């Protein structure tokens, strides 16, 4: 084995090492004076020394900026930290290097890589340990060494088939619960009993793999048990207020069905929701969360989160091409003291850096622009950070509906190899995190390789266009168990698990079946197309393997003999079966057999108790104040409001050439945009607007109003840039605490009801959604931290003509500023109260969807007619923040008079602090700040007859934000405050 160290030449500097040094300082270790880093390569095989030198010189080291060293260099006085991938963890760099070395005509058996850091300064062993574990290495996938380490060539352990039965028929309640717990099944007693009954009726014990598959299919993650439950909503006395059978069916699904939009082409039954784009094309949208993995391993968790959601539209209809990503994150306070971070949780800043890098590296490599997002901060996200990743995709209309495989179709496993990574991800994400999860569930984190997924995407689209497969789905949570299980729901399947390509030997049949290894898709391919489709994949170095076929062969569900297994395909009897069956084989031994009806319909629908019954509590009256400059600066700098340019610039938001409205806008291209607009079809002037709405601070106080706010904000944002409300659909993503607790469940029910009401009133259907429950963190001292009720609403809207799009930055001095929509007096949950250090009540400003939808429709008409020069939605921080953002984004000034601001009928007087503050900073929904050229004002105003619409200011060239005598700020000062928070 040859060891090669590659490092930057002294005179070129080492930006990565400098970045690490800065982060070491952030950890509070001042002793480190300098950091040097080196890349390590280990070449195994019959290479001569000369070969190794040639590889190092021509391939591994850059001749201009780098030097290499063969062997382990002398560290001198420096303290060494080496980080090596654990055996079995996929190493894409090593794989690429292997291929390149062979291209050079040199025979290499295997390559491994590592990283080396040399720290100078008086660093103690303890500090070095901290730096290694907190900063440099991820214990889940990497090993740390404090000297030069050369890894032994990895030995793979072969697997010897051992069929395992799990006795369940004779267990009592306690035994069933113990089995669920010890097996990480995360099933409750009722569910365990249903399984027990099934196997009693079958007259046999379940195989381990059968139990795993049931647990995965019935997991909260895959089964959405809470949302499908029958709810008993009670008041605090315990009296029943309302019964809601099958919560989701009667709220979110129900609204979509009732709205029955003809342009909704594929909703709620596929991996993404799909709407019509034009006569030829359709667009799909899906948003997923990847919270639990990101809590444990932010980089890997977030990157596989984006990788996973990208596969959703790829596996929708007959496959779609992603054209835009969105991301929304929730983190704990990034300024938190390291000592305040609960044991088992990572520091929020580390989580944020890791998550941002993970999304960046995966999304950028996939070549999908990240166009829209948001970040929220709250202390309670410290143990449960939230990572929402979304993907919008385009596909031919003729290929966009949900498909089913035909009996006899080959099951094709395409893409990444299967390893032990990600085992139990689906069930894991259904439980609560504890301080021990960091170690216990490390295997639940998957490791991603974006290039593998890009290759899969490239080739699948070719196969789709040639019409070679009948059905496709992604292999995500639950792995093959989930993808084959779902596809074969109606007709069954036979799978030979020994045929699944593995990253390394030693996996049991059960592990192969449930592994959540990344970048895999499952296809159903008619036999006559198998040869052709395999060629398409082989042509671009994509691994594709036939692992079985759909349809059961008609044999009676037999009882596998315990332990020994039973011969498979050769011994089939030809009895008719009443229900489709899934059969799993390993080396022709039947290792599992499941009745698909039981698997998919046997889950008992739970009944859940919910309570939401709180007293109204008003927020305190704002104190008297003459000047609000400081308040505005504070709100602009608040982490939820502050510029996220540090994140946005790391994402490629223009790849694919469809960018129309970018995430940053304005004269210096650094102001906040409302929604993003892209062209999914090059050459067409139709576009797609994407935006989101969310406010966890409202969620705490009033889940119903909070959900209305989220929908209203998402819709405002797409309308503000030029979207068509009549062709807008929304997605829901609920992240909640433990819904077995009636108060959490009560909040969930209230939010779901609001989603239904909002969908009906705005006439905007939900087309897809996802929930992540049990976001609670058990600290080592037994405390529970539950996240705020967090509902993300993502909107997708067709833009009929992208050349009419509008941005939020102020355009020209002399133009008139209008405020649309009513301002209400309530201040609950507002940034104003936070900035002033005042306790909030639960008086979230109520939303009036019936009126707001009229304002939005009129706004849309105005934009389509070309009457609007600028449009900014009012959200966090209200009018003052929106006006400041428009002003500094445009490099101009604004002058506003509060007297003209349209208000609700009951509103405190302008001369009272309450009235003034509500107008300046109130966060009522349904409002837009609009810039109109004077000559178009009359036409514009006509569109708003009968609606709240008033000219209350104008754009100036003074470079000042002036609101009566209450605010007078230089735009540069306001911008500096807004940009300073995340100037990382």
């Amino acid at each position, binding site marked *: 084995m040859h060891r090669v160290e590659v490092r930057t030449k002294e005179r070129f500097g080492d930006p990565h090492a*400098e970045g690490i040094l800065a982060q070491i300082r952030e950890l509070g270790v001042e002793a480190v004076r300098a950091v040097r880093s080196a890349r390590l390569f280990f070449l195994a095989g019959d290479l001569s020394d000369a070969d190794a030198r040639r590889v190092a010189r021509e391939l591994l080291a850059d*001749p*201009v900026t780098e030097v290499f060293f063969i062997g382990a260099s002398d560290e001198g006085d420096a303290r060494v930290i080496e980080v090596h991938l654990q055996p079995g963890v996929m190493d894409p760099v090593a794989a*690429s290097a292997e291929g390149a070395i062979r291209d050079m005509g040199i025979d290499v058996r295997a390559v491994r890589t590592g990283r080396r850091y040399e720290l100078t300064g008086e660093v103690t062993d303890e500090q070095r340990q901290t730096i290694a574990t907190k900063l440099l290495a991820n214990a889940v996938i990497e090993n740390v060494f404090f000297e030069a380490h050369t890894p032994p060539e990895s030995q793979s352990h072969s697997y010897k088939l051992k069929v395992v039965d799990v006795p369940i028929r004779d267990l009592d309640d306690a035994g069933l619960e113990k089995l669920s717990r010890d097996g990480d099944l995360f099933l409750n007693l009722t569910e365990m009993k249903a399984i027990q009954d099934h196997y009693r009726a079958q007259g046999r014990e379940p195989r381990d793999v059968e139990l795993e598959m049931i647990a995965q299919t019935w997991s909260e993650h895959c089964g959405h048990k809470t949302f499908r439950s029958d709810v008993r909503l009670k008041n605090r006395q315990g009296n029943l207020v309302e019964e809601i059978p099958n919560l989701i069916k009667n709220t979110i699904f129900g609204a979509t069905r009732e709205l029955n939009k003809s342009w909704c082409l594929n909703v709620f039954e596929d991996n993404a929701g799909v709407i019509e784009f034009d006569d030829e094309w359709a667009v799909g949208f899906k948003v997923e969360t990847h919270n639990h993995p990101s809590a444990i391993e932010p980089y890997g968790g977030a990157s596989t989160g984006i990788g996973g959601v990208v596969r959703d539209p790829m596996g929708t209809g007959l496959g779609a091409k992603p054209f835009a990503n969105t991301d929304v994150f929730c983190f704990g306070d990034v300024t938190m003291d390291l000592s305040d971070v609960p044991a088992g949780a990572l520091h929020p800043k580390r989580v944020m850096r890791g998550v941002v890098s993970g999304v960046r590296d995966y999304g950028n490599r996939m070549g999908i622009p990240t166009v829209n997002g948001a970040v929220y901060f709250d202390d309670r996200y410290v143990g449960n950070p939230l990572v929402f990743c979304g993907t919008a995709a385009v596909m031919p209309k003729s290929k966009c509906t949900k498909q089913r495989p035909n009996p006899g179709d080959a099951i094709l496993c395409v893409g990444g190899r299967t390893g032990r990574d990600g085992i139990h991800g689906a069930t894991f994400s259904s439980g609560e995190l504890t301080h021990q999860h960091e170690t216990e569930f490390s295997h639940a984190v998957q490791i991603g390789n974006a290039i593998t997924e890009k290759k899969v995407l490239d080739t699948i689209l070719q196969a789709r266009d040639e019409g070679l497969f009948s059905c496709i789905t992604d292999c995500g949570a639950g792995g093959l168990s989930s993808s084959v299980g779902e596809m074969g729901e109606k007709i069954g399947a036979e799978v030979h698990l020994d045929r699944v390509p593995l990253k390394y030997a030693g996996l049991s049949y059960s592990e192969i079946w449930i592994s959540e290894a990344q970048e895999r898709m499952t296809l159903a391919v008619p036999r006559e197309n198998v040869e052709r489709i395999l060629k398409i994949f082989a042509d671009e170095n994509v691994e594709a393997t036939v692992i079985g076929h759909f349809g059961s062969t008609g044999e009676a569900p037999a009882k596998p003999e315990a332990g020994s297994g039973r011969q498979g395909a050769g011994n089939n009897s030809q009895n008719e079966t009443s229900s489709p069956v899934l059969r799993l084989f390993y080396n022709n031994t039947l290792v599992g057999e499941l009745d698909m009806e039981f698997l998919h319909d046997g889950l008992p629908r739970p009944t859940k108790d919910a309570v939401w019954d709180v007293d109204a509590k008003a927020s305190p009256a704002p104190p008297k104040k003459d000047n609000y400059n400081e308040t505005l600066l504070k709100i602009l700098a608040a982490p939820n409001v502050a510029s996220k340019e540090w994140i946005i*610039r*790391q994402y490629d938001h223009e*790849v694919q050439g469809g960018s129309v409205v970018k995430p940053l806008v304005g004269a210096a291209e650094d102001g906040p945009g409302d929604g993003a607009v892209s062209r999914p079809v*090059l050459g067409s002037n139709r576009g797609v607007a994407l935006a989101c709405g969310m406010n966890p601070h409202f969620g705490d106080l009033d889940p119903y109003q909070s959900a209305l706010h989220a929908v209203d904000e998402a819709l405002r944002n797409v309308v503000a840039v030029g979207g068509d409300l009549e062709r807008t659909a929304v997605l829901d993503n609920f992240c909640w605490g433990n819904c077995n607790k009636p108060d959490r469940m009560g909040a969930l029910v209230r939010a779901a009801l609001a989603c239904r009401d909002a969908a009906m009133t705005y006439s905007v259907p939900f087309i897809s959604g996802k929930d992540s429950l049990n976001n609670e963190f058990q600290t080592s001292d037994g405390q529970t931290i539950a996240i705020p009720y967090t509902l993300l609403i993502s909107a997708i809207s067709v833009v009929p003509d992208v050349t009419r799009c509008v941005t939020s930055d102020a355009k020209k001095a002399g133009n008139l500023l209008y405020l649309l929509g009513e301002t209400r007096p309530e201040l609950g949950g507002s940034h104003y109260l936070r900035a002033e250090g005042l306790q909030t009540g639960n008086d979230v400003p109520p939303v009036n969807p019936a009126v707001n939808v009229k304002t939005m429709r009129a706004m849309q008409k105005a934009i389509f007619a070309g009457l609007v020069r600028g449009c900014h939605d009012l959200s966090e921080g209200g009018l003052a923040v929106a006006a400041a953002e428009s002003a500094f984004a445009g490099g101009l000034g604004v002058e506003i008079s509060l007297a003209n601001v349209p208000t609700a009928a009951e509103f405190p007087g302008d001369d009272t602090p309450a009235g003034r503050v509500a107008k300046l900073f109130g966060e009522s929904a349904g409002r837009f700040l609009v810039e109109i050229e004077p000559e178009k004002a009359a036409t514009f105003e006509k569109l708003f007859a009968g609606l709240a619409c008033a000219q209350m200011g104008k754009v100036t060239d003074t470079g000042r934000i002036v609101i009566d005598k209450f605010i007078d700020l230089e735009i540069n000062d306001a911008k500096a405050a807004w940009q300073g928070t995340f100037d990382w």
Partner: protein
Amino acid sequence: MNIKALVLRAAGTNCDVETAWALEQAGFEAQRVHVNRLMETPSRLADFQFLVVPGGFSFGDDVAAGKILANQMLHRLSEPLNDFVEAGKLILGICNGFQVLIKSGLLPWGRVEAATAGCDATLGWNDCGQFVDRWVHLRCDSGTCVFLPQGETIALPIAHGEGKFVPRDEAVLSRLRGGDQIALRYCDESGRPGGQTNPNGSVDDIAGLCDPTGRILGLMPHPERFVEITHHPQWTRRSVPRADGKIFFQRAFEHLRRQ
């Protein structure tokens, strides 16, 4: 006769579709061809007049950006590529494609040769240490380069992590200057290079480089991302007279048409 452009793709290439589209808008017949196909039948390259290596993350930027694809060119495609150059045809490398051209030797000296490839110049990590997406102004300096209107200042977006141009030494830089090979430099709106306008720390603000003949151009910015007015980040603010990225493809087309 149609003028044919080959858009070379590999695992991880991700700007090939819009690059092909931009080429078609300029009049080319554009074909996206996987490097595996070209390695199977290297003679196919001779059917084309224009080779474009588009942006992306070929092979995930593993080892170094563009390195693995460059290695394939060096060891599997050197002959047809050198023939292509000698035939007076055009080559354009955008972003990752620029990295590939540098690491395969096509830039700066116009020859694919394993012993010397990458020895005189490289594209290293941005000074800020991370990926950056933003718009920049560029001054078209070279009169030799067939793709560029000399003397004009244009706007294009960049999106890269490894775009810092570094020549081996002052002698190389002088030779590049002397040969009129410094095609594009980061500058401000009025065309003044230097200072804050340099997004990655490139030596001498170099954003793009051509070979001594001017027929091979590599650049970090993305011309294919500014072929519509609505691509410009300020098109909603003011009238944008021209989509600057189009010029590259139009001039290449005109050059080949004249021949």
